[in-house]
């Protein structure tokens, strides 16, 4: 069992709502340091919102988010930017800068935050690109990359400054099996070799369970279950069982809530 003091991020009783919709209702989570934590849940449950809360892009209505003991929501603008240098995020779309080549994209955080000479930056960038297997694509523009390559390039950019934490926002969505395998391997490797704490938000259950050390299952604004992947697979709770095993009908109904089917049909006549 992971002790609380090992947590890099502690989300304490966070409530967050958008408009009148409560996305998180008094949620607490602990992200262990140096491990891969998966946050699973059906689409539309605000998993990306969770990452934005950790990154300080959104502020919770109540509760606190502690990054290494520092309360993220109460940081000033400049302190927040300082803290963000320690974390990085891989966006769903990759979010590469369209006007720059792959090389310049990866070099971007280095050029922005360090005063390193250009030769050293070149070496570092080529090293990062080699890690993700895209050294040969350094001079390509983002528009010339496939979806999987764009994500790998974005991953190289995300680790350019050797962050403590990487947050992956749906890294596997819409990828072919080969690319998926490549990305999973990269996430695992970065975690084991560099000891980077990783948070993977996804709904590709079986793939993510294969690499995660700890899993949170989120739905309807609450944490439904947490545990190691094996614990979750054994979980008997109907919601968890349906999601983990990918069943079409169950606790989450196949049908969007509606009135009587017969009644609706009768009204057509």
């Amino acid at each position, binding site marked *: 069992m992971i002790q609380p003091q090992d947590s890099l991020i502690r989300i304490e009783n966070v409530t967050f709502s958008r408009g009148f919709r409560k996305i998180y209702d008094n949620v607490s989570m602990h992200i262990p340091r140096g491990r891969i934590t998966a946050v699973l849940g059906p689409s539309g449950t605000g998993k990306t919102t969770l990452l934005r809360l950790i990154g300080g*892009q959104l502020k919770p209505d109540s509760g606190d988010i502690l990054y290494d003991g520092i309360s993220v929501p109460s940081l000033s603008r400049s302190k927040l*930017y300082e803290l*963000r240098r320690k974390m990085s995020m891989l966006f769903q*779309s990759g979010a590469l800068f369209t006007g720059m080549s792959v090389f310049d994209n990866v070099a971007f955080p280095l050029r922005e935050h360090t005063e390193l000479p250009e030769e050293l930056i070149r070496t570092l960038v080529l090293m990062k690109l080699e890690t993700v297997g895209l050294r040969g694509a350094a001079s390509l523009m983002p528009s010339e990359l496939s979806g999987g390559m764009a994500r790998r390039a974005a991953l190289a950019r995300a680790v350019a400054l050797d962050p403590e934490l990487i947050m992956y926002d749906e890294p596997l969505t819409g990828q072919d099996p080969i690319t998926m395998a490549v990305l999973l391997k990269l996430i695992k490797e970065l975690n084991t070799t560099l000891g980077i704490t990783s948070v993977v938000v996804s709904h590709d259950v079986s793939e993510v369970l294969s690499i995660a050390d700890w899993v949170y299952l989120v739905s309807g604004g609450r944490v439904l279950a947490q545990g190691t992947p094996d614990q979750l697979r054994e979980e008997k709770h109907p919601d968890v069982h349906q999601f983990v095993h990918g069943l079409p009908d169950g606790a989450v109904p196949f049908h969007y809530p509606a009135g009587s089917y017969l009644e609706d049909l009768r009204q057509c006549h």
Partner: protein
Amino acid sequence: MPLSLIQSLGRRGVSFFTALGRALLMLLHSLVGKPNFRRHFPIFVEQLYATGVQSVMIIIVSGLFIGMVLGLQGYNVLVQFKAEASLGPLVSLSILRELGPVVAALLFAGRAGSALTAEIGLMKATEQLSSLEMMAVDPLRRVISPRFWAGFVSLPLLTFMFSLVGIFGGKMVGVDWLGIDEGTFWTGTQAAVEFYQDIVQGMVKSVLFAFIVCWVALFNGYSCLPTAAGISRATTDTVVHSSLLVLGFDFVLTALMFN
């Protein structure tokens, strides 16, 4: 019915002032603070190219045509009173005081403003702005600010070019085609045009218009819905809002300065 009308008016009022506040905050955060010249100057130059250099062609061509039309129309009216000699003052005063700053600003809103909105909107939709934030790079300082300054510098310069080309277009029609004496044209112009009254105040106008167009364009892009429909809506809004604001403020400024 009147109650819901008042209610919707109130809602519009609230959302208008909220947007205004957010626009002000955006401007404040992007412009206030210690500038980092070494990092931001190259971006500024890049943006000068995108907003300034790429607008030169449309500005010069429109300026030329507007000057030529003014020359032709002015001549036709003035010749009835045997006052063709006043064509120079007519063309140059109307261009320097009104047409130059206003038409250049409208063209700039259509050419550069809409492009700025679309670019920022696209950066938002593709999470590039978010990703900058997460890389601890403030997008307001890195993306918005250089674009604002570039537009702010470009438009007055474009206005000068527009005015100059316009006056020479009017001179071309009046002097070279319709046969007004060149000396008469220029002495009349020089007697009527005063540096502070006409050129400097025209420039004051174009500086304000540059501020308006850039602000509207950048804010619309920065606050648009991150979808294809949201971006196209924001782009249209930029052109419509900034054009209306330019024309409105033109009246205000004219009333303030030329009276």
